[in-house]
């Protein structure tokens, strides 16, 4: 287990470095000069061309744009490790502050959405597996197929129409109290539950074929005990991996769902920053999301190895 954990952690480091390199390159791959862009925005209405060469050169020096690329990357990396992502081109506020403000909303949305996805998808998957090749199975899988094809923004709109506009039970937008969390989390969770249901179904079918299930039945255990204590428990282990993968899907889904419900969050911040060409903000939001995803998957893999001692790193 320890050896596995060490290898797994070590393998994560180059990925994290690569992720930081890619986000670093965003600023250098865009057409145009970041310093000119910044001066154009901050020059109080003057066009970028009017800015004096001296101011331009000073800014390039200040931003470190005159250093060789490897030096710039090293600086970027050391500041990012200290949580310093530079200042927003738009507001000149430290990017870290904006991210710290919105991050809790995205974490909340993703975690609750994930919980709903596992709950709904898991339940549907188990029901389908236990009623294999009956109409219950077909109906459940048809529902999950439709779920897979549904754009999250459309589902969000439908939920808004029904629960906010017709029934007026829940607010359609905002990011305040818990009532504003329900619809976005439901949207995210429902969309992901289609995939979860399919995966849980096939895992459960796999487990039900195992010899220990036959043994449990043969020694006269009740069907409920066989299912709950023997089958379900073992079927849950692969579900942990599903959770890791789905976390990524939900994180990405949050980008759209946050926009649908005009909710504060990392995804919406990323999209707005791209539209405003606020590149330090774009870099940081994407870096935080990717690093979060990599770390969650690291945790998932480690807990998987812990839950299932048969796993070794080959």
């Amino acid at each position: 287990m320890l050896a596995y954990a060490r290898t797994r952690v070590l393998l994560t480091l180059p990925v994290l470095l690569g992720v930081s390199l890619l986000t670093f390159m965003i600023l250098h791959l865009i057409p145009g000069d970041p310093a000119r862009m910044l001066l154009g925005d901050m020059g109080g209405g003057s066009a970028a061309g009017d800015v004096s060469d001296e101011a331009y050169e000073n800014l390039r020096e200040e931003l470190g744009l005159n250093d060789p690329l490897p030096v710039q990357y090293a600086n970027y990396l050391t500041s990012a490790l200290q949580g310093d992502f530079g200042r927003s081109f738009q507001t000149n506020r430290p990017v870290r502050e904006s991210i710290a403000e919105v991050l809790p909303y995205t974490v909340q949305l993703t975690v609750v959405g994930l919980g709903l996805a596992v709950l709904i998808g898991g339940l549907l998957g188990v029901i389908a597996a236990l009623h294999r090749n009956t109409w219950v199975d077909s109906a459940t899988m048809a529902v999950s197929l439709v779920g897979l094809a549904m754009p999250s923004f459309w589902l969000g709109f439908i939920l808004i129409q029904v629960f906010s506009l017709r029934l007026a039970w829940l607010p359609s937008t905002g990011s305040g109290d818990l009532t504003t969390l329900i619809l976005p989390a439901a949207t995210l969770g429902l969309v992901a539950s289609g995939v979860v249901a399919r995966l849980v179904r096939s895992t459960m079918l796999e487990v039900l074929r195992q010899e220990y299930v036959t043994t449990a039945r043969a020694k006269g255990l009740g069907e409920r005990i066989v299912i709950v204590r023997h089958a379900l428990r073992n079927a849950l282990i692969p579900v942990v991996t599903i959770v890791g993968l789905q976390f990524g899907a939900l994180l990405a889904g949050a980008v759209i769902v946050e926009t649908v419900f005009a909710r504060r969050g990392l995804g919406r911040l990323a999209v707005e920053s791209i539209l405003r060409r606020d590149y330090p903000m774009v870099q940081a939001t994407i870096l935080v999301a990717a690093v979060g995803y990599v770390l969650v998957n690291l945790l998932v893999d480690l807990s998987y190895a812990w839950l299932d001692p048969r796993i070794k790193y080959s």
Partner: protein
Amino acid sequence: MQQTLPAPRAMLGAGSTPAGRGRWALVRRLRQNRGAVVGFALLAVVIALALAAPLVTTHDPIKINPPARNLGPSPEHWMGTDQFGRDVFTRVVYGARISLPVGLIAVAIAAVVGTVLGLLAGYYGRLVDGAVMRVIDIMLAFPGILMALVVVAILGASLQNVMIAVGISEIPRYTRLVRGSVLSARENLYVDAARITGLRDAAILFRHILPNVVGPMVVLATLSVGSAILAAAGLSFLGLGAQPPRPEWGAMLADGRQFLGSHWWIATMPGFAIALTVLAINMAGDGLRDVLDPRLQSR
């Protein structure tokens, strides 16, 4: 094995050898797969509507007609009209002319680049493999639409860049699939034989190894057209892709959001079109997978 009996799905691939049966065996097996039939039929309808768009619609998809704005569904406008008086049905049909090619082109980009990378990594191994797979690992650290966001952030927001972005974000799936298949195909005797006869690497790769990969790749490509359409519509919905007044489904949804309470059809109809198209493609892809699944065939 003559398939005169309606054999259960799992049995279908079992007895037939892939060689010597030709395409008709495939079509026959597809026709016995109910999901695939429904999927392909739906898809055919969507494609036919897209191709015949000027014939099946009676209005202009872009021209504004203020007197007719926000009309509910009626015989004249059976999906209603939008806030600019444009016929929603017309725009939805023309939307298929955008979303279908966008999905196809994105998948083509992903499949070509991903396959070449996978072939190189699997065939040459060692350094090439290490380098390619590390890049793929890094790309996989950006789940779903995030990788596409990186690309759009660099290239700028436009429908063309969305195609490229979605294409790039789907590369890892193809590279992994092809690399895995190449690793096992490489061990075949006929590959050794080809090498001994002095064939160049390129010839061995494309003539002797690539055919092994085609089946699973067709399945993956079909299924990923659906997810590519979803991703591209999502990016356009966010304002990063097609811009108004283009009748792109995602952009139309974004346009209609402020009228959800009063004129629900403006946003609902294009969403329905996306869901139906993606559903059709996924059902067709699932059917293809059941028929082409190499694990079923080799058993």
